[in-house]
């Protein structure tokens, strides 16, 4: 009985100690309450890495040409089920935010041109995507924000800093909420 009480006490202390170790995050507010959609406060925004890549239609694209605009950067793949789920949401948000000057750019991860173009055709995606077959662009961005899988959507502010992120499937309300805070 005594042993159980002492053991429970020690257990509680250890649990609290290990629990504390995981908390603590500065400058990040969640949009949806479960930390998969976040906004980084000004001053806590990591600088997005630059890249030059080939689009799925074969032209060169330099990410620095987007400087001065708010950019929604979506990491996707035609093989990825949640990407297919969120595709029409992204297309709808892109259509709504194009007039105020928000640009959309896709990063097509671990995919082939034929499948990716067929995907864009199926979901009426009109904004461009660059090919990231080797995940090299993803690697550069992972050094700034914890991208743990596909899809991931980043919102880049006018100064080229990462201002918000959705880890996982995008919902209309999450993305528009982030854009409202960054826009």
């Amino acid at each position: 009985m005594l042993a159980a009480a002492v053991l429970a006490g020690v257990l509680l202390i250890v649990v609290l100690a290990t629990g504390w170790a995981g908390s603590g995050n500065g400058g990040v507010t969640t949009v949806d309450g479960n930390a998969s959609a976040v906004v980084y406060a000004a001053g806590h925004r990591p600088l997005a890495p630059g890249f030059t890549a080939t689009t799925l239609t074969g032209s060169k694209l330099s990410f620095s040409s987007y400087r001065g605009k708010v950019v929604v950067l979506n990491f996707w793949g035609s093989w990825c089920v949640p990407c297919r789920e969120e595709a029409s949401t992204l297309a709808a948000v892109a259509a709504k935010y194009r007039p105020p000057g928000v640009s959309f750019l896709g990063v097509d991860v671990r995919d082939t041109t034929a499948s990716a173009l067929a995907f864009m055709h199926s979901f009426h995606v009109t904004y461009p995507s660059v090919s990231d077959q080797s995940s090299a662009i993803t690697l550069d961005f992972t050094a700034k924000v914890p991208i743990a899988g596909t899809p991931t959507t980043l919102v880049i502010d006018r100064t080229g800093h990462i201002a918000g992120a959705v880890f996982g499937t995008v919902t209309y309300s999450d993305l528009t909420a982030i854009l409202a805070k960054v826009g």
Partner: protein
Amino acid sequence: MTDVRAPETDPFDPAAERDDQPRPGSSSPGGTFGLADWLKWAWRQLTSMRIALILLFLLALASVPGSMLPQQGSNPASVQQYYVSHPALAPWLNRLGLFNVFAAPWFAAIYLLLFASLVGCVVPRTFRLAGSARTLPPRAPRHLARLPRSAEYTIALPPGDAVEVAARVLSGRGFRLRRPDDADLAQDWVSAEKGYLREAGNLLFHLALLGVLVSVALGGLFGYKADRLLVQGQSFADTVSALDEFHPGRFVTAADLGPFTMTLNRFDASYISSGQQRGQPSAFDARVTYTEQPGGPARTFDLDVNRPLSVDGAKVYLIGHGYAPEFTVTDARGHVVYNQPTPFVAGTSGNFLSEGVVKVPDAQPEQLGFTGVFVPTAVNVGGTLESVFPAADNPVVSLIAYAGNLGMDSGVPQSVYQLDTGAMHRLTTSPQVLQRGQSLKLPDGRGTITFTGYVPWVSLAITHDPGQLPALICGIAALGGLLLSFMIRRRRVFVRARVGPSTGIGTTVQVGGLARTDASGGFEAEFAELAARLRSAHEQAASAQPSQSAQPPPPAQPGRPAQQQAAQHRHEGE
């Protein structure tokens, strides 16, 4: 199980283990049970064998939900599915950490307590062993003839000289000596003990055991394991989203992965082409190009099964390979909707007869799916295709085509190696066999699929285990310590000399010996040899002696008190 304050007790004597009932210690006069006593008692509880076993059992029990519920780390898709099918229960399970059991605080609590319990058991035991390795031999018993081994003879030397000669012989044999101290100077005896390395071995074993625990913890906390399938000609970057599987340690985040990129330039597998071992692999060679960081210099390396690549602190192992047939699919509109090598996985039937699926989710008007078999060296045996050799000498594929809903547009992520045909219908009645370059025309103008060729793929395991080398070193040390403690006997020899047999005539020398642990035997012979050696040394000394008068003999170092000599011998004995 542990008691630091009792260095005199034999560490291997079960009677030395204290009971673990609470009782007033010396720090609490008046019998009250204070905080210090509580803490002491709790510590004794924690480090007892009973609690260690309970914790071990709890650890096993706590792992059970990890295998019964889907886990975020290894199978996030199933976790999402669980959320969908149990919307009320899932958030509660998540709050209890049951979807990430091995990283849950309560799981950490159990293994940290177990670790503390083991450390608390091993460390005091280590101190006790260290103390026992430094102790002097006991005083010589009065009746040496009662010891398991004994000998007695008479010589013409004064008792003091006889003991001195015996001490010299024993010391020369590497025994640690003890001589009478001030209180019993009147007696002439020497105690000798040998085999302290046994205790040193034991000590080494315990310390190494602790080292193994720490190493395993290091590996578990700071290491990671990952897998990636890489098709020839393709590249990948070591980042979580580009890995097929990622199992990080407790303190590992995605940012801890080394930022290397790797391209599989070429993979060759050679097979024995004749004889009994026909079809057995003779050599593998995966030529890769890698850069340690983005923008760094590109290097090449030949990966082999037992030749991993070390990069960014991780090791990349070649753990498997297979064939990826290349397909091109056009849909009803004539659009190319699929054009890529598709990894097929070898089944159990041998000779790399491999299975795989092709999913074409963006074909119009309906999604297309194919289940296929790749046969590297095909032979038609009575209407069924068999592979007779693992190399791709006559590659063919056999396909069954489906159309309908692949289930990829909603719901849970699915395996790339499985086709859910629940919402699809078969387009071909029998499997269609294609040679390289041949096409299958799908019915109703749905398009075509062409088997354009094949490339090999390799599967890579990327591991980082900072505890691996320390664990190996500690394991070897533990084995060495165990061998030392098994093979070395601890044995004691006593020599007593007294005037006699009758007053004034000669000296009776008694030699007694016992081995404290004589599992391997052999002490009997050693004692007989030693007794003979002592006797001959005594006889030599006696014949060198001019007379039998009781003159003080020339000691080894004249004028030094016996105790000081004993101290010196003790030093030599160590």
